[in-house]
């Protein structure tokens, strides 16, 4: 039976990829196989079959090594599909692996299906303006967008080990520093208050944080606040080159709504926006809009919220 492999170096993402692999396996009458590199992580679902690739000093922390290990294992096992999580490192793993195996790699898909011969998937392109359907003949590699599938949980499958020997790496990691904030918090947030250039001073973020707190939410931002001004950590940057979020409520405060930003918030259930420019593109992407000065509107919202809670 043809195998559909699922790999991600991130535990949280790995369980999402397992969900995707199970769907693809069902569609192509294959078997989903969870693949781990270097060591078995018990928090990664193992219902069905799990393959642990081993070798001296082998670690999934190096995408180059992960790709090398997957290549050596896939060369023998010949899986029909290899799904990787489209994290930054995951995309490197998928790209390298596809070149090594001489097969196609379909980039970050938000939906994937297929049959015995083809893998078909969809992804947003042109800053989310277009949904593109892509296909590849099997075998192939595909990267699955983070957050696109629910995490699968299960345990009790058979665990196999495969030794691939020495896998080369050409760069070395000298130091690792955890980022200040976690993108996990924003991805899981039910309510996000997101701020943009309309905020005049860094000190004013305190007021915005207060609004987020009053709504039971988390503070995010558009690109300029993280990348250009550095007022919030890069991990809070929502948009095409930052992270994609899908909260119940996305409240954009002083964000103009460039396509790149909107690309990261499209899947929100409700989008509300406050902006002083009535022609700001964010109003086209929002369910509810208030045209006004955020320095008046935000305190007014907080007043309403506190009076309701009394």
């Amino acid at each position, binding site marked *: 039976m043809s195998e559909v492999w699922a790999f991600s170096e991130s535990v949280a993402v790995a369980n999402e990829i397992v969900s995707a692999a199970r769907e693809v396996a069902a569609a192509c009458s294959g078997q989903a196989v969870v693949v781990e590199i270097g060591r078995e992580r018990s928090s990664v679902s193992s219902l069905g079959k799990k393959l642990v690739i081993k070798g001296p000093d082998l670690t999934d922390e190096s995408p180059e090594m992960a790709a090398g290990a997957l290549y050596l294992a896939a060369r023998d096992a010949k899986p029909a599909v290899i799904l990787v999580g489209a994290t930054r490192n995951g995309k490197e793993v998928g*790209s*390298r692996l596809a070149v090594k195996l001489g097969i196609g790699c379909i980039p970050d898909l938000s939906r994937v299906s297929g049959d015995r011969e083809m893998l078909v998937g969809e992804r947003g392109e042109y800053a989310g303006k277009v949904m593109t359907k892509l296909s590849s003949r099997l075998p192939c590699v595909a990267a699955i967008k983070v957050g696109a599938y629910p995490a699968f949980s299960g345990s009790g499958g058979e665990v196999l080990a495969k030794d691939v020997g020495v896998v080369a790496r050409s760069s070395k990691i000298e130091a690792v520093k955890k980022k200040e904030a976690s993108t996990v918090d924003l991805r899981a947030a039910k309510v996000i208050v997101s701020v943009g250039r309309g905020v005049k001073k860094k000190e004013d973020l305190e007021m915005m944080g207060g609004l987020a707190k009053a709504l039971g939410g988390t503070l995010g931002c558009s690109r300029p606040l993280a990348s250009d001004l550095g007022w919030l950590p890069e991990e809070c940057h929502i948009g095409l080159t930052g992270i994609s979020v899908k909260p119940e409520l996305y409240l954009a405060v002083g964000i103009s709504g460039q396509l790149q930003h909107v690309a990261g918030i499209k899947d929100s259930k409700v989008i509300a926006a406050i902006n002083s420019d009535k022609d700001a593109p964010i109003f086209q992407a929002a369910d509810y809009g208030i045209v006004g000065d955020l320095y*008046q509107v935000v305190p*007014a919202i907080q007043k309403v919220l506190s009076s309701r809670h009394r």
Partner: protein
Amino acid sequence: MRFAVCVKHAVDESELKIDSSGKPQLEGAQARMGTFDKNAVEEALRLRTALGGEVVAITVGRAEARKSLKEALAMGADKGVHVLADPGTLDSSRTSELLAAAIAKTGPFDLVICSEGSSDTYTGLVPPMVAERVRFPYVGYVRKLEVAAQTVKAERSLEERLESVESSLPSVVSVVSEINEPRYPTLIQIMQASKKPVEELTPQQLGIGDVQASVRTVSMTAQAMNRKRVVLEGSPDEAASKLIDALASEGVIPK
């Protein structure tokens, strides 16, 4: 040192029109050098200023992709390399094959710089594929880059952490957009760009035959933005009150 920068002639997503049947009109759509590619060019220029040498901008595309090379040349690149191919027939794998062959033919290079992704399709697959093909070490998603005689020291920005990575030259790197602020060329630079040399290469000249891409586009449909677009009128207090009521009745905040 010789620096290669890979750039893409990318459709300007903000100008992309959707026809009445809901299909994007890519044919004849306005295109320019990918937004993030400017960061890659800027980084190469910065390194050239510090270390001396030459910056070569490389693109794969149809005749009109020359425009994007000119943008890179106007910013300050010394030379252009244009691999003539129709991107409609290519996938990331084929594109990386052409780029790798062009890098080999017009090299040797000490460092190949790419952006994290093109602003149109933003797949981010090509840079590691190029590295895999030219067999250089690869450091992706770099937000700080130091290059010395033999080594590259880079800070990589991943989802949850920053990694300080060291690799040796030659290397391929991809840079994230926060690495620098790309310069705007002056009018004189734009005019002078036309005089800079551009080498045209065909896939045949690179020894690459006509192979079909593995990944193909099946269809493209415009994404409808089905939002209510209700503007809440009134004074800040009135509008705020209406907003909270609306959000509560949507069930996204407690009633």
